[in-house]
Every structure is written in C-alpha cells, then in structure tokens.
C-alpha cells in the first residue's frame, strides 16, 4: 500500500490547510450577498458549501484529537490503508477540477443561511484547530484508527482521515471557486476577489 514519511505528509497537510485559510480569509471580505446566493435551484451557495464542511469538522476534529491523544508515539513511516487511500483519491480534485459528482449524506446537507460571517468564522476556527491537530500528530502514531462519521464500523487510520478530510475540503473549494464565478458572472481567477496591490 501507499507509504509516506509521516513528518513530510503532516507538513504537506499543514500547508494544504493554510492555503484553505488564506482562501477563506479572502471569502470573509467578499460581498455577503454573493456568498449567500445560490447559483441555481437546489445548488449550494458558497456559505452552504462552507457549512457542509463545518459539519464534518464538528465530528472529525474531536474524533481525531481523542484518537491521537490515546494513541502511542510517532512512527517514521505511515502506511495508508487501502480504504482510506481509496476515499482520499475519490475526493481529491484532479488538476483543480472535480469530475465525479456526489450527493451529500443527510446529516451534512446545509440549511439556508442568513448570515455569512459566523459560518466563515467557524470554518476558519476549525482550520486552525486542524493545524494544531496536525502539529500534535507529529508526535503521535497516525496509524491509529478513527471511526468514520458515516458508520463506526468503518475506521480509517488517522493519517488517512486527515488526508481524506482535507481532500474533501479541497474538492469543495473548487466548487466554491466555480460558484463564485457563476454568481459573479465572470470567469474568476482562483484567488477570489483579491487584488495584489
């Protein structure tokens, strides 16, 4: 199965998380009307996408924390489990695009929101918690298994849970970029609404 140097993997995941923080920081300053607008019937607004991501954080961040705290000390090499690796590959956007569409499970379908800021704040807080967890994970064995949110019967290694969780976020950020472009009616660059200068 796929093997990683544990430290390098965690560093990479931290860098990925920081990129999400940077993008979300730009979103925070965006016109709330744009963030709350649904691009079409039954399609999620940017805020709904973030709320969907937040709902996963609510489960996975404590689950990862508990799992890691109770686990033993770090091992140099992390061997990805086949299921964990499969889920991650399924999630990851390829070349910045998402081809396979999926339907969100019932617990993770976001309601309509009136206020954008709290959702973004929560998202940012969660990403900072994630950064801290990834830092903690450097001292811990990330082979320890964490039950998934879908069913406790399926448990993925912490390393894979991190990979899968972040890949899922990255996937939805592609969606956010597309949604913004649609709602703004432009072909936007990825770094939403920011100007260097």
């Amino acid at each position, binding site marked *: 199965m796929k093997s990683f140097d544990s430290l390098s993997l965690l560093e990479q995941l931290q860098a990925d998380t920081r990129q999400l923080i940077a993008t979300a920081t730009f979103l925070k300053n*965006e016109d709330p009307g744009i963030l709350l607008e649904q691009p079409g019937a039954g399609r999620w607004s940017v805020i709904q996408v973030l709320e969907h991501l937040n709902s996963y954080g609510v489960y996975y961040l404590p689950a990862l924390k508990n799992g890691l705290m109770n686990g033993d000390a770090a091992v140099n090499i992390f061997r990805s489990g086949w299921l964990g690796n499969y889920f991650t590959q399924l999630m990851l956007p390829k070349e910045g695009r998402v081809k396979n569409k999926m339907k969100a499970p019932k617990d993770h379908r976001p309601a309509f929101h009136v206020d954008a800021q709290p959702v973004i704040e929560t998202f940012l807080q969660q990403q900072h918690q994630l950064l801290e967890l990834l830092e903690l994970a450097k001292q811990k064995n990330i082979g320890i298994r964490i039950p998934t949110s879908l069913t406790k019967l399926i448990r993925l290694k912490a390393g894979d849970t991190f990979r899968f969780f972040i890949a899922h976020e990255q996937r939805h950020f592609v969606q956010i970029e597309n949604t913004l472009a649609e709602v703004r009616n432009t072909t936007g660059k990825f770094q939403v609404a920011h100007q260097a200068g």
Partner: protein
Amino acid sequence: MPLQQLQQFVSLIYPLKEKEWNAFAAIWSPLECRRKTILTAAGETERHLYFVLEGVQRAFYIGDDNKEATLVFTYPPSFAGVADSFLTQTPSHYFFETLTASRFLRTSYRQAEELMQQYPNIQRMVLNVTALALKGVLVRQAELQCFSAEEKFRTLLKRSPHVLQLIPHKYLASYLGIDPATFSKLLGSKKI
C-alpha cells in the same frame, strides 16, 4: 555546507565562540518546499525560525477590503519566517509563503529559547538580528510614506538589483506600494 552559509552569515552579525557556535549549529534541520507553499498562516503562532539557503519567499497581509500587501521578501542569505510572531509567541497577522522552490535550515522556538537561556552571546546575536530587522522596517516605512513611485523603484533596484528576475512583478509593485500599471511603466522606462 548549509551550516557554513549560516555560520558565515551569523559571524557578520555577532561573533560566537566555538562552543557557542556548535550548540547553535545543532538546533537546525533541513527543509525543502515546493513553490507557493504557505508555511505560516495569519492567526497561527510562528513555531519556527528559518534560514534561507535557496529560493525566494514573502510575507503578506490580507486586508479587510481584500487588498493584499506584500511586506517583505526573503532570499539567501537571511533569516525568515514571521519574526514578530516568533519572538513574542503570539498569533501572526501575516502569511508566510514560498514564491519559488526553497531550501531552508529550520529550528523551533523551544530550541532557540533554550539556547538563548543558556548562552548570553547567542541571545545577544538574536538581539542584533532583531535590531537590524527593525532598522530595515523603519527605513522602509519612511520611504513608503515619503518617496515618489519612481524614487521607490530606483531605491529597490539599487539595493537589490537581482529582484526583478527573482520575484513576480505584481508582488514587487505591492511591496513598493505602487499600482501594477505604474510599476510596468517604470520598468519600461528603466535603462538596462
């Protein structure tokens, strides 16, 4: 060899005795990063101090109106990272990222702190580095407020002529507080 670069750099700032240098040298580990890797995010407390061996990085701030300000560039040989967050161990206001593939030596706050407690000369050296950084910031602030776009542009080229090749122009324009169009114009009128 990387440690040699560090030693050379440090010796220009403050001389360390052999025992002190050996202790200092021992806290650094190598790190390699791809381009556009964010090493520190705003809101995160800077855990590390970097010494740049290769590549260019920048620290930038995202403002409320989504205006992005590039505050500082780092390239060899120099220390890097979000200095104020590192020294105060409070959350950074800035993002620190690589602009090109980069190689560093890196150490942690804990290791640096232990060393500074143990060796007054190392603390003195860090103090000197910090003073130099502060000096640079004040000089820059005065220039940003007082110089014309052309003066700022010329000063940059005089101080660091190689930056035009190393750093994307949009970041240089931001750093100088000049809008990109003006920067392009100045670039065009520059005599090669």
